[in-house]
């Protein structure tokens, strides 16, 4: 089982990284429906894989200078309590409700995958408070962060999803950072990646305290996703990413349908 789990998680990490949608979102359905793992144990294992992937990606992106660390720290003050809250309420929510929510998130991720990255929008002048000094330089131009409070609140919601479902919620974070707060896509992606590790770690601690972390499950999963994501970041500039994105989105959509069928059944 360990070898199969390693191969499957490697492919999930690779495809997730190449498509930019993250491998975490397919880990939980794979573990639940492919390997018969209990949902909460699958969520806990997925969180560890998400932390590992996020640390690798963040370390690579930090050196490129796109990560808006100050904004990341500010938004984490909402996302981390959200993730802990999500992880704390997860055991008391009926499994089929979590599965239903997961199916909806999978549908959303599949739609994002089919449509491609969102087009940049012109943001209105709702700049962040001057005392936080969140202005940043992108391509030699000074930029401002917009709608900070709205983004902060929504990040709390993203944190809840992360803690509840064991996902990085990268697609949701990037949408908030880019569409609402007006960050350019590379800055939004790098900042989201830095936040994901902290959110998943916070939720992971809660699952750890409840003894839901199964090292035997995590052992093949962690290196699988880690190696897949690492190879994905290496191959991303060398492959036809659009085709891979559509293939991965189709897979995510199928998993969403499978999860929905499971809930109805």
């Amino acid at each position, binding site marked *: 089982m360990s070898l199969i789990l390693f191969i499957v998680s490697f492919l999930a990490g690779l495809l997730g990284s190449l498509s930019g949608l993250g491998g975490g979102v397919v880990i939980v359905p794979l573990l639940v429906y492919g390997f018969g793992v209990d949902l909460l144990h699958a969520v806990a294992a997925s969180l560890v894989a998400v932390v590992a992937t996020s640390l690798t990606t963040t370390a690579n992106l930090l050196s490129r*200078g796109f990560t808006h660390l100050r904004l990341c*720290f500010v938004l984490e003050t909402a996302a981390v*309590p959200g993730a802990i809250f999500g992880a704390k309420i997860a055991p008391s929510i009926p499994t089929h409700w979590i599965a239903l929510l997961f199916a909806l998130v999978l549908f959303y991720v599949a739609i994002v995958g089919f449509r491609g990255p969102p087009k940049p929008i012109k943001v209105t002048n709702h700049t962040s408070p001057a005392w936080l000094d969140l202005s940043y330089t992108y391509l030699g131009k000074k930029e401002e962060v917009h709608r900070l409070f709205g983004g902060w609140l929504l990040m709390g919601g993203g944190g809840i999803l992360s803690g509840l479902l064991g996902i990085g919620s990268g697609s949701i974070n990037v949408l908030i950072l880019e569409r609402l707060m007006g960050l350019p896509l590379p800055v939004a992606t790098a900042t989201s990646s830095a936040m994901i590790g902290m959110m998943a770690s916070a939720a992971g601690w809660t699952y750890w305290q409840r003894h839901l972390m199964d090292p035997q499950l995590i052992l093949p999963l*962690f290196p699988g996703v880690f190696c897949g994501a690492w190879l994905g970041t290496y191959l991303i500039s060398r492959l036809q990413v659009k085709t891979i994105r559509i293939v991965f989105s189709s897979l995510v959509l199928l998993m969403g349908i499978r999860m929905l069928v499971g809930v109805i059944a």
Partner: protein
Amino acid sequence: MKMERLLEYILRLGLALSLIPLIIGGISGSIPWQEFGILILLLTPLLRNLASAILYIYNKNYLFTFITLITVLIILFA
């Protein structure tokens, strides 16, 4: 850029340090070693924030010292 460089090293070090006990645990079949590796991995983002807080203190930016520390405290005491 100094902070970015330091945080990059912390993240890479955390990943490497978590992989060692996981590999030892995987080879020997020892659950405590495997759990130790997972613990280091989960601790790494917290260490990232602690290191940032220290750097913010050094730069006399007490607001961001508080912001980075509060996230760590929330995780530790939640």
